[in-house]
């Protein structure tokens, strides 16, 4: 079965699923699974070396002949899309079921499959105009998915912000593709690396795709959108949709020539974004906002890899460039997997407790053992700890950066600060997920909702288990994935010659396996000892306090206080506190809020100014006929004067 046949099966199934989505949820699920399986099979075929699939039709859509292409680079993203798309669809059957959400569940199913179709189109179309159409439809589908819960004002506001930012990006893309078409004389896309005059267009593409990718500081829409969307939608948006932005930057930095500074800018933006993103994440008390900021961090890591590869291309030092690129590409998969797992896990927590606030959870591991284990697995992966997949790709990026630093060329100036920033970000990420896991799962329940929490059902657990299995698979089989990564890298830019798997990789897999085995043995020993000798339960030492309550526990704020202090200039926390006073203090309050600094301090004031200026300009539009005639007279007069000056002077 060729990739083309598989893709057409997938397309037919997906279109049928759109029709079935409203009324027939079971058929919808089977069709979505079929479509995703077909797309996954097609991408695996391409990645396994079956060669790129290309299809040109004489049929013209919107005046342009249809041209589809699936090479290793887009197959890499398509594989992730189909896996997460299918898992999220299964998850939504229980999480956003017809019984709980009779109003929005049917809409959600149609929007879900439409979003998958549009993203698959973005990955496969090879015509600028069609790309724009698919891109726009993809953004709009994302909006409808995000605002499934229409009754929720926060979700609506997040949807507006998402739509606005998305369109700001699309505007840049309109300029990008139109200028490209003007320069090349055709909307057809493909490699055009021998046209140096196209290089400045890279900045437009970087802005347009960077907004979607959540590249710091263009990430302003991302935290609220990911936090307020239904969890399976957050998983898709964070795991896959922002990767479309990454894909765009990758695709067009590979196909078009890039400016001299492109690699440096990407490394700088990526490194600072990784650090600042996770710092913002660490201080959040909303679990999903924390995860959302963590996505900003991981996108930063991906961009460091890509930027490094661009610098390597400039300097002709391909070996470390391809390491960095492979790290970035692998991180696309890894982040897609573990972040979807975490978002689905947070969905399971919200399903059980009805809140996203960490300060209302606590003690959930007893009540939700499956979710706890799966979330912890995701947390270990996202923190970049061995033996899971996050470690592998970050390690590849580090390896590339260290090799670059060792060259002692100008590239070292980018590599060393980037490595330091990534290392700091990694440490903060570890702290952030230690905070999230411990506050949510350990200790005593902090609210009645947490006390009465229940484990999620099989339809929610199954997809999470599948994604967790993918995380483990990606961690232990880097040598199996290496040829696929090399194919994608050479599709990105053939100037990067494939290198053999770094010798350390198989050793790394061995170390990972050993570590995992040791951890498993340790857990087994602990469990067997506990069952043999029994566990004595008693109150923890409470400083002699007579009436301990669950509120006397470490809070999220206690974890992040010190980092909040270090980065106060960036976070600008807003605090309101009335401290307890006197011998017998009455009630006291302490409220802390972390604003989204870029949005509230930069984008907000600028937007307010534009709105104010527009309001002034709008006063000209008042409906008085006489004044409109005066405008015409003034206009004619001005034109007359211009012509007069032009002719007689």
């Amino acid at each position: 079965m060729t990739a083309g046949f598989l893709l057409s099966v997938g397309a037919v199934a997906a279109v049928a699923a759109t029709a079935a989505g409203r009324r027939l949820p079971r058929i919808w699920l089977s069709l979505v699974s079929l479509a995703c399986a077909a797309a996954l099979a097609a991408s695996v075929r391409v990645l396994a070396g079956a060669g790129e699939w290309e299809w040109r039709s004489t049929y013209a859509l919107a005046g342009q002949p249809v041209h589809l292409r699936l090479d290793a680079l887009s197959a890499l993203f398509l594989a992730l899309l189909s896996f997460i798309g299918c898992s999220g669809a299964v998850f939504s059957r229980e999480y956003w079921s017809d019984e709980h959400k009779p109003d929005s569940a049917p809409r959600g199913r149609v929007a879900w499959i439409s979003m998958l179709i549009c993203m698959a189109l973005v990955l496969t179309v090879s015509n600028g105009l069609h790309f724009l159409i698919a891109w726009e439809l993809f953004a709009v589908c994302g909006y409808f998915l995000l605002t499934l819960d229409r009754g929720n004002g926060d979700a609506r506001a997040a949807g507006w912000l998402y739509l606005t930012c998305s369109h700001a990006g699309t505007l840049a893309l309109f300029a990008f593709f139109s200028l490209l078409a003007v320069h090349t004389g055709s909307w057809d896309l493909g490699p055009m690396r021998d046209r140096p005059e196209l290089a400045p267009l890279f900045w437009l593409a970087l802005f347009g795709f960077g907004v979607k990718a959540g590249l710091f500081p263009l990430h302003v829409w991302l935290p609220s959108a990911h936090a307020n969307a239904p969890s399976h939608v957050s998983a898709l948006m964070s795991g896959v949709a922002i990767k479309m932005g990454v894909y765009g930057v990758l695709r067009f930095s590979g196909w078009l020539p890039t400016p001299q500074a492109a690699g440096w800018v990407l490394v700088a933006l990526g490194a600072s974004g990784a650090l600042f993103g996770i710092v913002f994440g660490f201080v959040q008390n909303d679990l999903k906002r924390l995860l959302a900021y963590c996505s900003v961090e991981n996108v930063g890591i991906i961009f460091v890899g890509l930027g490094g590869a661009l610098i390597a291309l400039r300097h002709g030092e391909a070996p470390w460039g391809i390491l960095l690129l492979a790290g970035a590409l692998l991180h696309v998969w890894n982040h897609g997997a573990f972040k979807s797992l975490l978002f689905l896990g947070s969905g399971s927590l919200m399903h059980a407790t009805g809140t996203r606030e960490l300060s209302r959870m606590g003690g959930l591991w007893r009540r939700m053992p499956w979710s706890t284990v799966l979330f912890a697995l995701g947390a270990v992966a996202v923190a970049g700890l061995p033996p899971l997949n996050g470690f592998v790709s970050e390690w590849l990026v580090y390896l590339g950066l260290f090799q670059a630093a060792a060259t002692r060329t100008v590239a070292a100036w980018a590599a060393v600060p980037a490595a330091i920033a990534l290392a700091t970000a990694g440490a903060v990420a570890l702290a952030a997920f230690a905070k999230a896991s411990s506050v949510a799962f350990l200790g005593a329940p902090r609210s009645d909702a947490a006390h009465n929490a229940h484990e999620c059902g099989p339809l929610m657990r199954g997809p999470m288990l599948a994604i967790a299995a993918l995380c483990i698979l990606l961690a232990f089989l880097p040598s199996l994935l290496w040829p696929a990564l090399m194919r994608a890298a050479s599709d990105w830019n053939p100037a990067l010659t494939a290198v053999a798997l770094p010798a350390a990789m198989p050793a790394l897999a061995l170390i990972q396996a050993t570590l995992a085995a040791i951890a498993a043995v340790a857990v087994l020993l602990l469990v067997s000892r506990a069952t043999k000798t029994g566990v004595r339960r008693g109150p923890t030492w409470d400083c002699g306090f007579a009436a301990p309550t669950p509120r006397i526990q470490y809070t999220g704020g206690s974890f992040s206080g010190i980092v909040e202090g270090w980065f106060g200039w960036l976070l600008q926390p807003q605090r309101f506190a009335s401290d307890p006073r006197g011998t017998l203090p009455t009630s006291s309050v302490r409220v802390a809020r972390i604003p989204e600094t870029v949005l509230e301090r930069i984008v907000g004031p600028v937007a307010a100014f534009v709105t104010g200026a527009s309001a002034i300009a709008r006063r000209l539009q008042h409906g008085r006929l006489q004044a409109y005639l005066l405008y015409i007279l003034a206009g004619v007069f001005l034109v007359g004067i211009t012509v007069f000056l032009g002719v007689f002077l």
Partner: protein
Amino acid sequence: MNETLNLLVGMAMGLNLLALGSGRLPTLIRTVALQGMTLGIMPLLIEPRFEWPVVLVSFATVVGKGWIIPSLLRRAMRTANIDREIEPFIGFVPSLLLGAGGTIAAVALSRALPLLPEHAGSMLVPGALASVLTGFVLLIGRTKAISQVCGYLILENGIYLFGLLLIQATPLLVDAGILLDVTVGVFVIGIIVDRIQRAFDSLDTRKLTVLRE
């Protein structure tokens, strides 16, 4: 011949000022009608030879501008049953000053324009410019729909005067077409005036602001 033409153009310019200064709708309509008839005679004076089409257009203009359009306006005024007073945005004295200033500026400007030698001594260009300006002042400075129609007619008269410069170059059919347009336009406006009256109980165009969105 040229002196007679200039005299007529001068008369039209005087009528402009009269239109700006008149405070009652019937006077305004009558002024516009008179100006239209003055303009209608002009093709006969410009065309050196006697030609039937010219006579026909001239006759049609006089009848159209001097009789049909004013009677349509009067009828609209009667059926809408409106106040005969004109309510100005720009007062009569400022309007007159603007009109006079505009006329002087038009004369000065036409001196500066690079005209063909045969038009150099003619008052047609300043007359046309002055009428266009007057029309605009009326359109901008009056509130009632009918007085605005009159402003529009004067504006159109200015354009007609420009057209006379080209009478040898353009077929008269074009002039006839313009005339037909104007007549239909006034006819339509007459209907709209009636509708506005029914919808808003007034012909004050200021009330149209509620329609702006």
